């Protein structure tokens, strides 16, 4: 029965990825149009131009991140690919789990950092990579390593990796677009243009347009982030459950989470864009890893509590 549930999850995740792109495209066009109108002093042609540029930029970035996102992320995290001779046990653990999940063996990367963390990336199980820091690799026993790797492979199996990458890019573009607009308002680029046109009593309409655009530009990125983080937290719980579905051994992952929670070190190679990908939040200091709607990860205490409830 559990298998069915995860299967539906995968179908949902892939469909949601497309809906996500579509929804963001519509949002970009609408927002671009609105911003263009304000910049162009209410001129529709200028609005359409900006809308097209915004949509094209988003589309291009989507394509880029679909094909090159994982290598960019791995590069950013300074991860090095390793071969079986470098760490036979790690390879064995991953290969075993791939048998359990019926997926191809992903590429395995090592991050040269003493902080404890791990993440998965790629666009589908055939093009996937998992990375682990040296700090985490060294401090886990075989069962715990298995739990962590099963968590990462669950992200791969659930297509979380595709969804998370696309989401990160979309939110990034949205934030950038609104940022550019808000900055331009500071320098009054819009008002200068507007004065040069002869407006026949369109002042009130333009003022409303400006206010709507300003409010949207402030609210949209915040909303997008809240949605992104909320989905990210949900995915962590699901990957924990998926890990147990693969290993049938909740104690391994639980042991690893306890060790991860006790790690006070900050992972230097992580940043806000890559944070949602990791098994525990890489940047926040451990005292701050608490409940909040802006968090990418649920608190470890909650994750442990849910693991205890799982039966398989």
């Amino acid at each position, binding site marked *: *029965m559990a298998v069915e549930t995860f*299967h539906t999850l995968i179908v949902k995740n892939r469909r949601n990825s497309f809906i996500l792109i579509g929804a963001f495209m519509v949002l970009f066009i609408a927002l671009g149009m609105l911003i263009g109108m304000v910049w162009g002093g209410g001129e529709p042609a200028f609005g359409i131009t900006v809308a097209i540029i915004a949509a094209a930029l988003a589309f291009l970035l989507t394509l880029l991140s679909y094909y090159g996102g994982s290598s960019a992320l791995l590069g950013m995290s300074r991860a090095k690919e390793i071969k079986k001779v470098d760490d*036979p046990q790690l390879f064995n653990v991953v*290969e*075993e789990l791939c048998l359990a999940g019926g997926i191809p063996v992903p590429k395995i990367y090592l991050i040269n950092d003493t902080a404890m963390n791990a993440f998965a990336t790629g666009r589908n199980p055939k093009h996937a990579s998992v990375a682990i820091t040296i700090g985490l690799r060294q401090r886990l026993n*075989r069962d715990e390593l298995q739990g962590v790797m099963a968590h990462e492979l669950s992200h791969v199996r659930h297509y979380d990796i595709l969804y998370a990458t696309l989401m990160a890019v979309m939110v990034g573009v949205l934030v950038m677009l609104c940022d550019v607009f808000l900055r331009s308002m500071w320098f009054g680029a819009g008002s200068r243009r507007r004065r040069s046109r002869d407006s026949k009593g369109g002042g009130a309409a333009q003022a409303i347009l400006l206010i709507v655009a300003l409010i949207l530009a402030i609210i949209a990125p915040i909303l997008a982030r809240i949605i992104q983080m909320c989905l990210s937290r949900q995915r962590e719980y699901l990957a924990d459950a998926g890990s147990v579905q693969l*290993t*049938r051994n909740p104690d391994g992952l639980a042991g690893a989470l306890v060790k991860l929670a006790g790690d006070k070190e900050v992972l230097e190679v992580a940043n806000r864009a890559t944070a949602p990908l990791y098994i525990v939040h890489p940047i926040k200091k451990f005292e701050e890893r608490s409940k909040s709607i802006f968090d990418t990860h649920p608190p470890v205490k909650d994750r442990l509590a849910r693991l205890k409830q799982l039966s398989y």
Partner: protein
Amino acid sequence: MIGLWVVIAVVVMIVLFLIAVYNGLVQKRVRCREAWSQIDVQLKRRYDLIPNLVDTVKGYAAHEKETLENVIQARNQAVTAQGVQAQAEAENMLTGALGKLFALSESYPNLKANENFAQLQEELTSTENRIAFSRQHYNDSAAVYNTARMKFPNNIVANTFGFKNQEYFEIDEPAQREVPKVSF
């Protein structure tokens, strides 16, 4: 006239739907068979590892003849075993014999320190896990297939075209059901 077209359209849609159901069932059945064949691959991996292991242990504990011979004998029995029941029994014997071998290695510090032995131990641990996981994957695939087969309206297609129920891989001893906790 319009009525005729409607009937044709409905028939075409039903046929397309049935084809989709049929193909879906075929795909799930293929996955089951793939999963099943993977189990044999992993069992063979274990048979191949054992002679190496025995040779290594011999170098340090040659006088533990009985234990070593038991392992070899159990392995050969497992390789030649015919039928599911006989094979399951032989596999159980082999697991037991290997367990004894590793227990014995505790009293030979030199053997435990041997890098080759440690490597073999890791490989064997991994193989035990692989066998368990490929069985688990087979059962998962069989569960997906069986559920699909029994659902309405798939069951009509399944019964018409002879899609049979896939049996689960079951082990008699409850202790064997669990993922082997390898602590040799």
